[in-house]
């Protein structure tokens, strides 16, 4: 799909570069500026979280990184090459719940992107097994989505995003529909998977606690027009623990994000 870029990568695999990106939605009455002059760099292997109030364009930015939407201006490169259309070899995407195909079993869902490319059945099955094992769902492959809990469905989605071993994993509010306990568990699970695979993760959320708990870096966005208002490093050590949530370092980071969001809301 990007043969030139594959031969001469300008950047190491997993790097994301966003340069002066703007996005304008044209409606019949007026043009809405969804994003204005957004620039950011994500180094390979980093866990970066985008937060901001509704309408700040964080999901739009993520969709553009996935090649699901094209920016009006500016450039986005993934591993050094632009992404004019979705490419699951370079970028895996995990959505909010309910993006699993309900008529397929868990393993068939995970195999789906491989089946689109004509990978043989046995090869597909083996790779789906590996991905399901990685997300802790060994032995659940034959179940249909309606037989799985919300957290398990999201694990299947993550396995599906990782099955082609892309260096980048983009996650659009993946845990938003889960209850709080499951959400905490899934956060820890995601960090474990991230540590095991070394992927670059860009994660969109509404939850400030989730943002600080998971991230190496938090990018705070504000709406009308969508732009970046702060870029924080999270110096908390890893592995992250539940006790850190009540610590001063954690609290002051969360307060700093909250002040930005309150100003713009």
């Amino acid at each position: 799909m990007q043969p030139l870029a594959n031969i001469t990568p300008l950047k190491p695999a997993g790097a994301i570069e966003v340069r002066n990106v703007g996005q304008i939605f044209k409606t019949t009455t007026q043009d809405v500026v969804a994003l204005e002059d957004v620039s950011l760099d994500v180094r390979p292997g980093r866990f970066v979280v985008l937060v901001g109030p509704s309408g700040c364009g964080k999901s739009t930015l993520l969709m553009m990184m996935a090649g699901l939407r094209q920016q009006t201006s500016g450039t986005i490169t993934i591993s050094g090459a632009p992404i004019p259309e979705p490419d699951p070899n370079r970028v895996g995407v995990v959505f909010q719940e309910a993006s699993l195909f309900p008529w397929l079993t868990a393993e068939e869902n995970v195999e789906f992107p491989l089946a689109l490319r004509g990978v043989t059945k046995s090869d597909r099955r083996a790779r789906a097994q590996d991905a399901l094992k990685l997300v802790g769902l060994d032995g659940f492959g034959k179940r249909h989505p309606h037989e799985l809990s919300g957290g398990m469905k999201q694990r299947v989605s993550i396995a599906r995003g990782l099955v082609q071993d892309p260096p980048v994993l983009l996650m659009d509010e993946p845990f938003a529909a889960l209850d709080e306990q499951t959400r905490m568990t899934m956060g820890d699970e995601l960090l474990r998977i991230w540590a095991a695979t070394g992927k670059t993760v860009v994660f969109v959320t509404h939850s400030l606690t989730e943002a600080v708990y998971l991230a190496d870096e938090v990018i705070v966005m504000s709406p009308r027009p969508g732009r970046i208002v702060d870029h924080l490093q999270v110096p908390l050590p890893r592995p992250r623990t539940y006790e850190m949530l009540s610590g001063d370092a954690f609290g002051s980071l969360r307060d700093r994000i909250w002040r930005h969001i309150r100003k713009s809301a």
Partner: protein
Amino acid sequence: MSAATLRRLIVIGLIVLWEILPRAGFIPELFLPSLSSTLAAGWNEAGEYGHALAVTLYEVAISMAFACGGGILLGAIVGSLPRPRILIMPMVSSLYAVPLVILYPVFTVWLGIGSESKIAFASIYGFLPTMLATAAGIQTIDPQLLLAARSMGATLSQRLVRVIIPAAIPTVLSGLRVGGALVIVGVVVSEMLISSAGIGYLISRYRTILDSPHVFAGVLLVLAMAIAFNAAIKWIERKAAIWQTGTRAGQDSAGEVAPTALQPAT
């Protein structure tokens, strides 16, 4: 006692009452002949009923093919393309409220009183709900599923075959259930109105000579046909739809949707 047992008991009770009430003289045989005399009447004219059933089944089969094939095809087009949808849907929806049976005399003028006019009428009659359900099934596919497929690099034709069609199946099936039932209604009703063959024709002919046992024998045959059709659809639904949530509408349409729920005025 489970609901299924209770249901069976009710059916058995009705059958027993059907035999006892006319026999005991509570109901005149003219109004309701007993079950045994109905069966005997049917058995004595087995050849005539067999021929009528063959005619009716033939008309039902052809109409079913037109109604379901055309309904699914046009429903898919209308459901996936906004422009035809805006153009056609209001027309189809208002047509659905018209008692189409008023058109039947016109069909007999155009096509004669043979099978052709029944097939034309029943096809149109069953076509509308099938088309509306298919259009709705495709329109209500969760856009998240299509977005996810696209993020995995699915081409347009891959999305059609691997996402849109399987996701629409439950709603389409519920449309077929209603459309197929209406095809049977359409064929039998048109046979009763103006005709020279078929079960509906037999029923109406025996009615004019006040031969109740033979009328009810015909009614039993139509009943059996409807029950067989329903069983066939249920079997297909079990085969095809392990899931019921492929579309947002699918969650409601899966269960026991009474065929009459969507039925227009006859």
